[in-house]
């Protein structure tokens, strides 16, 4: 298949996907629409992490922290921190409508990511994973400590704040009324699809090739004139910006932010999602996002259904058995790494290759 044809197939697939996303709420309950909104949020974060880890080869176990930066930025811009008694230079005045905070949250998180990219230059592979892991673990403590700034452990409650669109009343947009769940769904997926297209644009161009060069062989990249530092830092900045946008939407959706809403588990899930979805693929990431969302909510509940009852010992476990669902989840994760090293996206790619090579081999 020529690159041109591949691109065409890609476009068609994307267009079909957009149509599905646009039409889905009409066929599912309002509550499911809200759940899919969260899938969209995770997709945004995964897109960013994929740029960093899948394309540039830098492992981050700390993207939850960048989401937290975005989330807190949004909350503070909406509410301000005068309520925490902070006056003077660090006082932030609230009052910005929630949707407008999204790009700002992305920008702030992106800047933090760029700043992080500098020290990260000296680290690679496992050390970077370790350092980002430490960042994700330390961020909640820092947020609690600076409570004049962040609201501390109690966090910031956005429900009922006038700048928040969310609530139980329908939202008015383009002159039509929309249920809150549907509004959230469309907001998240519009942003997700725009950023998806953005990621695709970034990655197909020179920047993307440079990223891949950095991942595949640093020495080769340097010798072909690719500035390692510039692209590594850029990758951090972009992926952090994506995570910041995701965090901002997350906070708007939850209407609440505090140090515990972005725990280390989230950072771990994001990395898992990217790997399960398929590193270096864009398509599989949707599955990664679905995986994360349903694993978080449904795993403990659905464990009964997933594990067959006839398995000795393991078959006895259910939600009432503390610890057992986690044991099973860890085991599943390990098995996934054994059998699906390229994630779900890898399956797609192989299926796609099989299809096209069949065409070739027919001599058509």
């Amino acid at each position: 298949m020529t690159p041109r044809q591949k691109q065409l197939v890609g476009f068609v697939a994307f267009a079909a996907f957009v149509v599905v996303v646009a039409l889905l709420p009409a066929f599912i309950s309002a509550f499911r629409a809200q759940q899919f909104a969260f899938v969209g949020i995770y997709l945004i974060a995964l897109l960013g992490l994929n740029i960093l880890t899948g394309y540039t080869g830098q492992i981050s176990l700390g993207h939850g922290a960048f989401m937290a930066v975005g989330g807190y930025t949004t909350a503070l811009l909406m509410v301000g921190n005068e309520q925490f008694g902070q006056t003077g230079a660090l006082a932030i005045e609230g009052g910005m409508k929630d949707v407008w905070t999204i790009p700002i949250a992305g920008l702030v998180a992106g800047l933090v990511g760029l700043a992080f990219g500098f020290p990260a230059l000296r680290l690679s592979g496992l050390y970077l994973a370790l350092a980002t892991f430490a960042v994700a673990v330390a961020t909640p403590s820092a947020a609690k400590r600076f409570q004049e700034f962040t609201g501390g452990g109690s966090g910031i409650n956005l429900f009922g704040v006038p700048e928040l669109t969310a609530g139980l009343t329908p939202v008015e947009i383009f002159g039509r009324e929309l249920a809150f769940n549907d509004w959230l769904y469309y907001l998240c997926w519009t942003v997700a699809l725009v950023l998806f297209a953005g990621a695709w644009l970034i990655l197909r161009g020179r920047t993307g090739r440079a990223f891949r060069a950095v991942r595949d062989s640093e020495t080769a990249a340097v010798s072909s004139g690719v500035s390692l530092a510039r692209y590594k830092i850029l990758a951090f900045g972009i992926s952090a910006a994506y995570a910041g946008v995701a965090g901002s939407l997350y906070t708007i959706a939850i209407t609440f932010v505090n140090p515990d809403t972005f725990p280390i588990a989230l950072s771990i899930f994001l990395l898992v999602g990217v790997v399960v979805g398929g590193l270096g693929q864009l398509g599989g990431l949707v599955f990664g996002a679905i995986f994360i969302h349903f694993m978080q909510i449904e795993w403990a509940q659905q464990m009964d259904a997933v594990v067959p009852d006839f398995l000795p010992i393991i078959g006895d476990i259910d939600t009432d058995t503390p610890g057992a669902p986690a044991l099973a989840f860890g085991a599943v994760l390990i098995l996934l790494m054994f059998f699906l090293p390229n994630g779900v996206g890898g399956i797609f790619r192989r299926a796609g290759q099989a299809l096209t090579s069949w065409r070739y081999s027919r001599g058509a």
Partner: protein
Amino acid sequence: MRRLPAVVAPIIACAAALILLPTGLAGSSADPGITATTIVLGGTSPLTGPAAAYASVARGAKAYLDSVNARGGVARRTFEYKIVDDAYNPAQTVQATRQLVESDNVFAVFNSLGTEHNQAIRDYLNQAKVPHLFVATGATTFGRDAARYPWTIGFQPSYQAEGLVYGRYLGQTRRGARIAVLYQNDDYGRDLLAGLKRGIARSTARVVAEETYDVTAPDVQSQIAQLKASRANVLAIFGTPKFAIQSYVFANRLNWRPLIVNNSVSGASNIMLLASEGGKNKAVNGSITLNFLKDPTDPRWRRDAGMRQYRSIMSRYAKGANVRDVYHVYGMAVAYETVSLFRRLGANPTRAGLMARARSITSAGNPFLLPGVTVKTGRRDGFPIQQGQLQRWRGGKWVPFGGLWSSNRL
């Protein structure tokens, strides 16, 4: 210019969808969650994650409700109690609670655990007019702000009230007490400290040192050493069991023997026994704490009817669970009151009716609470339980002294 379509396409598609597609608003029936044969309750609990130890609260409640169902339920309806895991993450609490309300259509949200977690869902539930019943946290706001949040009500004595009792007790019995406080750096620890300070306000007792810790701390050795250095003669431990045990261990190691005030969350007998390090740690002797539940590891209740009921329910409906865990008792206590509420509601329960009854409780004789502790709410009283019993650790067990303290009369 060729790049434009890729970015614009999704925006156009979604805008088109918004304009062209019909949208439905979620309708809500009068009072979901009630059928002819069931009452559906739902709540969140940290089944996994850092606070998994508190999942017993939900399990105890479920076991009690199961036992009530086995005897026919209330007004011929059985209880269905959906416990959803939130991994102690308020973001999950919000999502899980919305699921319970919008997808599972519960009648009431009941026994959800966690301070910030309940704060995160309180506005939503009040706006949706869903009962937010007996939240499992002692943060004062849940009782104090009843006017603003009429659909929300707590259960256990507030942490501030508990601190107040300790303060009054110290002020009355220890002239010039110099109090050192170790407190967890969240609302729970701070509420206890604030209550303590109010309690000693008009006495000669003083807080001479405060040290805090984050739950991510591996140990609190450094803090205890600092508190000892303040030459205090009373140590107040306002922290969770792991850190309370450590406090006793380190105080003992440093040869520091202040009077130790332990908080109710960490006051269970099995925790105290661990802290006493097999009898070698003498710092535990003379400790005092406030208690309102019957502790399953306390030999006092071996033949008590309420605790016999507890043990029998646990063995039949919570097989494999740890009977010694006092949080199961809490769960049963709150489930008992809930069942009483529904009995008062009668054959046609409504959400508004439930809250009205919840705000006018006068109940004594809860088999799982200490004898004499009553459950009472009123128009200006949003705290169901406000009483506790001070007890002193002697000879390897808690010995109650004095009468019941009522924090609303202090």
